[in-house]
């Protein structure tokens, strides 16, 4: 094993990366989001998507949905590290439950004329995207779905005059009658 002179043990890890969606129930108090984000940046974890909003204002509870990637060992670490934070109530790995629904909302602005405009409208209809703003030379579409569907829609809009996209990030919830 050839490695640079170091007092640390430098290793290559070969486990494949996985993508997991985590739901984190937290006390909604100042700094709580900074704690969660700081954990990810401080320990070198990835955030692919982050969605956060207060969900129960009476109890001051917020729900954070994080899509992250890492080896199985890293994913396990992320969950434990989140769970031991003082204001964190619960961490649920939605990917492991295999019974979760994931949705994202995107607003997609497309500018074009003639055939492009007609084609954009036609595709939007196929994707069940709604027109929420229109001018004589542009549309803003609202589309909801899983990440793949939205990616696909955006890709299709690209040659038709895509101007910009605003996405909410993933929100996830478990199927069935039980809460998290």
């Amino acid at each position, binding site marked *: 094993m050839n490695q640079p*002179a*170091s*007092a640390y*043990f430098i290793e290559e890890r070969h486990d494949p990366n996985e993508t997991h969606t985590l739901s984190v129930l937290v*006390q909604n108090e100042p700094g709580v989001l900074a704690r969660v984000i*700081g954990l990810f940046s401080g320990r070198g974890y990835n955030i692919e998507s982050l969605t956060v909003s207060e969900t129960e204002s009476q109890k001051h509870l917020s729900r954070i949905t994080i899509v992250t990637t890492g080896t199985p060992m890293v994913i396990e*670490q992320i969950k434990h590290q989140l769970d031991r*934070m003082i204001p*964190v109530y619960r961490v649920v790995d939605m990917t492991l439950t295999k019974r979760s629904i994931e949705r994202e909302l995107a607003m997609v602005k497309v500018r074009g004329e003639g055939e492009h405009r007609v084609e954009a409208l036609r595709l939007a209809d196929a994707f069940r995207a709604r027109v929420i703003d229109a001018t004589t030379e542009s549309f803003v579409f609202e589309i909801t779905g899983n990440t793949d569907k939205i990616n696909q829609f955006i890709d299709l809009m690209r040659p038709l005059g895509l101007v910009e996209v605003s996405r909410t990030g993933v929100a996830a919830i478990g199927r069935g009658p039980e809460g998290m």
Partner: protein
Amino acid sequence: MSDKSHDPNQMTGAAMIVRALIDHGVTDIFGYPGGAVLPIYDEIFQQSEVQHILVRHEQGAGHAAEGYARSTGRPGVALVTSGPGATNMVTPLTDALMDSIPLVCISGQVPTHLIGNDAFQECDTVGITRPCTKHNWLVRDVNDLAKVLHEAFYVATTGRPGPVLVDVPKDVQFATGTYHPPRKSDVHRSYAPRVKGDATQIRKAVALLAGAKRPVIYSGGGVINSGPEATRLLRELVEVTGFPITSTLMGLGAYPASGKSWLGMLGMHGTYEANMTMHDCDVMLCVGARFDDRITGRVDAFSPGSKKIHIDIDPSSINKNIRVDVPIIGDCGNILGDILQVFKAEAKKPDIKAWWQQIAQWRARNSLYYRKSNDVILPQHAIQSLFEATRGKDTYITTEVGQHQMWAAQFYGFEEPHRWMTSGGLGTMGYGLPAAVGVQVAHPDSLVIDIAGDASVQMTMQEMSTAVQYELPIKIFILNNQYMGMVRQWQQLLHGNRLSHSYSEAMPDFVKLAEAYGGVGIQVHKPGDLDGAIQEMISVKRPVLFDCRVASLENCFPMIPSGKAHNEMLLPEQANDEATAKAFAGGKALV
């Protein structure tokens, strides 16, 4: 006047802070005043229940509080002002986080209406200290202060202990509000550390232990943090099972160094027998340790043939570095008690005579060997002499970080927990002197010695002044080799002996320095004078700087070279130039 003004629980924020300290049994705090904490200092002035120790630098307050906490098992408390006062606390807070030390830091902040304005001595204290505390709080309303202070003490001392910080703006200190004594509802409902171990896991663990042919117990600082009962149970478990035991740097003293099952410390500079036992064992019981990289060596070659049981109160310590077979989450003391109960009821002491014979062969390699000299003091010899001179005395040892720290761990035998205060995780040079101040405050009549290096000790030397002011007779035992010894050793072993900036060309005269501070200076050069000088140091009832001139180029062995496994240790008798070059060959190729 309304009735409210007669309510004894109506008080200013500053008064609440002192009141909360008293309610949590705090008798000593370490701090440094400044603009944003003056109301608190005014309250401290007007009472006598909490003694305040004035340090010379806020970092000293933090380390002193750490030493206090580690030597008593009670939380240490530091009080600092806003801005630089708070930023100077970052090192001790991080140190306490890495080593799981309960620390409560109260910092002043600029008035709430100035927060975010770049006011004088303003900094984002909660932002800066968020990654280096277990939790922290900014209190914007005086009526939240009591709750936050009580929660701070609870969080610092329960579960895996750690540092917390409460940031209190000056206007909140002045404002009047309602105080309440500690109550359960002060704590986040989301915070509930698990104490009791899972019964099924405990049974699995006992089954593994009972069937072991080549077992080892690997204990850590968690046993000491758990309290005296955990230490007692650990010793009983060793007795009942007859298993060999090793420990991390942080865990020294939980099992006595004079005990017959003791293998010495493990890890990078651990003993050969400890590391070989870890490597070749078939069942490993890890209690309150975290498989740190200084312990494991090369991870993919770490104890390859063993089933591993891991007891830890922090679930994030499980499977972080090493995959274990039987994790048990909960308090060490609690779980050790359960394991013992099941073991005694259902298992027999396994026959491991052959294993002990193997260990005896490893032990016979005498991995802590060093060549004594009549001309120059060997640092290992200095520690041994210090140990012999203080054996049986009521002694507490702190250290700085580097070679002297490893030699202290190797050659000073600890019989009891809470007697050994060292910066393990963070490796903070400058920890030992202020930590000794804190230990001596907690144990005024005990012998408190900081085993120091000449480089480390200069990082927080100013706390000598604190020791003199409070008549704290700490002994600073400096192994003076004029180098940053561990840096020099690595440069020799890994960087072609190019000693880049590891030599201190302008060393102060430590004897004169001690005298300038109002302490006592002792210098010794010759091995023959060492014992007498140590006796003199011990008998002096004042702070002492002991300048022990030692061999300047001595290396700390044994050593696991980087990228190597436990069974590839470099032993002192093999550490000639050729073998050393070979052991570090992987590194040399790229130098």
